[in-house]
């Protein structure tokens, strides 16, 4: 085997962190919700990722969130982390998270975060994708689908 450069190994490990691999292998909330009040599909035609996000909203609180579908490690881990995070949040706070996460992953250089009153530390595991422009779409796919679902849009969203 070729010796792999240590720095490169680090870079790859920065993208494929243990937390990401764990959520990709064992996605949380990976099922359909019967009686979901909101749902939307997300499609990434570039790599064929197809997710469907479900949410049950009671009043203005997301009492349950889930997803199903298939995708790469980054998109599945992101969906898993997202559904974990937004369960129990108000719809508005979840939308704030969507704005914060997508801005952070798509803005070049150091992103100045806004305090939205939610601990986004776990989501930071995805920060590695900022160096991979073609993979940012994978990381934001579930979030776009959630945004579309809670806003009641019926067209599948695409990250293309």
């Amino acid at each position, binding site marked *: 085997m070729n010796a792999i*450069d240590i720095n490169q190994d680090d870079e790859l490990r920065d993208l494929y962190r243990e937390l990401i691999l764990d959520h990709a292998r064992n996605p949380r909330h990976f099922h359909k919700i019967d009686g979901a009040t909101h749902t939307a599909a997300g499609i990434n035609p570039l790599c064929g990722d197809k997710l469907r996000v479900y949410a049950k909203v009671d009043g203005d609180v997301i009492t349950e969130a889930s997803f199903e579908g298939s995708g790469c490690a980054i998109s599945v881990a992101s969906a898993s982390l997202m559904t974990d995070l937004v369960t129990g949040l108000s719809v508005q706070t979840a939308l704030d998270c969507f704005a914060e996460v997508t801005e952070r992953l798509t803005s070049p250089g150091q992103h100045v975060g806004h305090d939205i009153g939610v601990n986004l530390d776990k989501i930071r595991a995805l920060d590695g994708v900022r160096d991979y422009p073609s993979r940012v779409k994978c990381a934001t796919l579930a979030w776009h689908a959630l945004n579309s679902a809670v806003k009641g849009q019926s067209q599948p969203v695409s990250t293309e």
Partner: protein
Amino acid sequence: MSQPQETRFSSVADCRRDFPALHQQVHGHPLAFLDSAASAQQPESVIQAVSHYQQHDHANVHRGVYTLSHRATEAYEGARDKIRSFINASSRKEVILTSGTTESINLVAQSYCRPRLQAGDEILITHMEHHANLVPWQLVCEQTGAKLVAAPINKAGELEIDAFDKLVSDRTRLIAVAHVSNALGTVNPVKDIICRAKARDIPVLLDGAQGVPHMSVDVQALDCDFYAFSAHKMFGPTGTGVLFGKEALLEDMPPYQGGGDMILEVSFDGTTFNELPYKFEAGTPNISGVIGLGAAIDYLLSVGMENVAQHETQLLEYMMQQLSNIDGMRLIGTAATKASVQSFLVDDIHPHDLGTILDHQGVAIRTGHHCAMPVMDYFGVPGTARASVALYNNRDDIDQLVNAIRKAQQIFS
């Protein structure tokens, strides 16, 4: 103007030095470019031909009476003659210059099929087609009430020829088949298909995007009615392609697009169309792209298509062997006769993750559905990783690929 290359290769392996883009490091590793099926790199001679034209000879073609326009026209039409000879068309009238395979096929769908098709007529394709040889037919079927029929493939990725035969009906108005499958590498038995079609007087279009770069193509020996291909898969520029069509068919077809260059006389009472091939070339064409294609043909001829085919066949065999040695490897596309391409999946690593990890080790492959979603559906996968070899690849590229895959397995273990 392009300078034809002298024959100077002791072996195809020497070709690599002619491709400037291959001589670079990516993420600290030598580039192993294994995605020529998507778009091939260009040799110095093509880059120089395009640059020479742009620096010295640029003007619009078929119009000016001045020196530069003459030079541009000569280079552009000279390239058409090279293309004619390269595919052995019987006349330059049969060589229509387009923006690529996709436009070539759309031209046939709209100009040949649309006026002829009636509700209930059929167009027969296969299950392994690229979207470019599927969607244009779907569109013309929607426009006319005709039906698109797809012949099945087997688990090796080969066309089921008996089933194909049974699907040829009295209503079949055109058969459109890939010469070589872009997702699976299968070389289809096109001569056989054409023979059977001729017996029933059905015209055949071949999607040659993946054929022309890898083997010598003789449209008269094949006796196909249309043959479509792209410059950028055969070491020429993007945005340029060819539609070969038999003269008698092309003569009968109405223009595909209206505009300048495709007319003889225009008045408000009507327009007289230009003769072949100009009838199908409305507007200012991709002059530099066509000149680059001419230079790419010179280059391929200097290497020799037989040498190209032999080199690639050996390399593909080596790649398939080496990939098979990896635990957890699933090869997709194992037809008896193949060219250039190997699709695969490793363990349960998503092709996109594999692509990113390979890129980090200097290995460029294609990942995804390869614009052939029905093929992915058939194999029950969302996509595959695909490595494709061209005349400039060597065993080191394959070894680098294999090592990089093992690295990905470590990360995902």
